[in-house]
């Protein structure tokens, strides 16, 4: 290997890695700021509709876990609006393992059944989701809010689940 060849190859590799790193960092920052705004807005709405006090710690946890990893599309739809009971579909939340969408039914102002759909393709994600979502569901039903702590070992799933749920709750006018 000539010196010229070695240094050129090293330089090119470092340059490409640095570019990738740069894109990743910029990407992460954008996400963080978007999510921060989103969380702020939804916290207000949540406080208004569910009359639950949002503790700073809980909000902090949620935004912390969400930042830099999760992107949300804000296309929630509402359906099945019958007397006293309505179903709200949360926004679809995506990350590197797939997307997750929560559907919640609210009867007389009380959250009752919660279901979710997932596009996670790999067994690992599916098993984590299968383990975490029952816990999340029972916590949410108990708290009547999306402001619950995430399940350890299922940080990303919790973030997607709770963010989607929050966006569903946001639709309750």
């Amino acid at each position, binding site marked *: 290997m000539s010196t010229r060849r070695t240094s050129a190859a090293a330089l090119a590799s470092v340059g490409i*890695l640095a570019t990738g790193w740069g894109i990743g960092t910029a990407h992460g920052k954008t996400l963080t700021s978007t999510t921060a705004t989103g969380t702020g807005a939804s916290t207000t709405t949540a406080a208004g509709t569910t009359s639950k006090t949002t503790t700073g710690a809980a909000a902090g946890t949620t935004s912390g876990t969400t930042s830099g990893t999760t992107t949300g599309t804000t296309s929630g739809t509402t359906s099945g609006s019958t007397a006293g009971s309505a179903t709200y579909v949360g926004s679809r939340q995506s990350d590197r393992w797939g997307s997750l969408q929560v559907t919640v039914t609210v009867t007389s102002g009380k959250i009752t059944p919660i279901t979710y759909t997932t596009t996670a393709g790999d*067994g690992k994600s599916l098993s984590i989701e299968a383990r975490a979502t029952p816990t999340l569901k029972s916590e949410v039903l108990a708290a009547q809010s999306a402001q619950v702590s995430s399940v350890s070992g299922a940080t990303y799933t919790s973030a997607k689940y709770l963010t989607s749920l929050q966006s569903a709750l946001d639709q309750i006018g």
Partner: protein
Amino acid sequence: MSTTYPTTIGRPSPATTHPTPAPGRLAAAYRRQGARRELRRDLLTVAGWSIVAGSVALFLADGGMTQFGTIGDAVTSLGIIAGLVATALMCLMLLLTARVPVIDQTLGQDRATSLHATIGRGMVFGLLAHGVLLLLGYSFTGRITPIKTFTGLWADSTDFRWAVLATAMLAVVGISSMVAVRRKYPYEAWFAIHLTTYAAIAASLPHQFSMSGLFAEGKLERTFWMLLLFATGAAMLAFRVILPVISTLTHRLTVTAVTPVGPDAVSIEVTGRKLDTLGARGGQWLNWRFLTPALALQPHPFSLSADPTDRTMRITVRDLGAGTARLQHLKPGTKVAVEGPYGMFTDAARTRDKVVLVGAGIGIAPIRALLESTSFAPGHAVVILRAHTADELYLVDEIRTLCAQRGAGLHLLVGPRAWDSWVSTSYAGAQLTDFAPWVREADVFVCGPNAWMDAVLANARECGIPASQVHDERFTW
């Protein structure tokens, strides 16, 4: 046809007449040619490393460096990187054996193949690391045992089962490709095992896109990755399948003469159309497939033993085994399919105006073709041929005539080898510098049996000849 020295890269004239070139201009032209080849080598090296770095950069661009927060995430991330690097290396390996012209004309096919094998060992480690690290990472994160992770994935995902199968197949290929094992198999068995590589690669593809979030649908990373895989596949298909088929159909090669040139060797003359467009040069080799029922499935790499003309090519083949034995009885009129030409054992490898050609046994054949097709001033070339018996100095009469016409020195080293030296006992103690005092300022071309070539190359190093001026070609087959 008018110039006898290479002023452009690509196709130096296969000069059939050699007017004495101006020594200064010849030296400058060959030095430029050498510098350009070095540049190509540098660019290819940069390109290769860039592909590997690019695969890791895709992970980083997706926010990969935030995925090292916990032990589970860190191990998982390393596993992902290992998989990306291994796949990038796999693409490089395929490109190296795809007979891409620029790679062949820069590295030479034999060097490309040995680099392919070197990278292959790294790739197998990368793949194993990919599997093991991801199982561990998932287990840490999911707080279950690796075995449970594996059985869970196995039960849940078809693509995972394909990926496991691919790993197993690649392991088989890797083991069977190791030289020690390869010698035990006939060519066909080795080829069949190697073909499973393609099945393995195909089996590994689905999980790359379905199980990794990195290449999830709609992501830019997915597009990049598909482009890399597609370009690799396209290069393989174009240069290993389509181009040879077109060559074979275009040139319509037929055996026209089979002439004995020694007790155990024949020269095979092949005639066809438009051979100038095939672009073969003296010293290059082609993969020959003689279309008889017994031989059609066996492609044989043979070097040209004469500079090709617009109508004919000639190879000289020694009886070295079952396949080559049958070639000795080839009938004129037999149709021939070819892949090639390949190799840098040609005028295109020259970097100096002086040249020393060293050949032994049937390795004399490409030396003969190179002597005919390369340029030098009288007195600036020496040919050294070695054989156990005078009978095995194949084509020596032709070489004697060429040397006399062109003003090249000729040394014939016949008899047993002196100890572990490359010369015969009659020349015991002789060095390359004894045959050509100016050898340090010359290109040295070496072709012959592996062990003997190693001895010549060792002597070249002892004589202080820069490695960039020493050119050898090896056939693993």
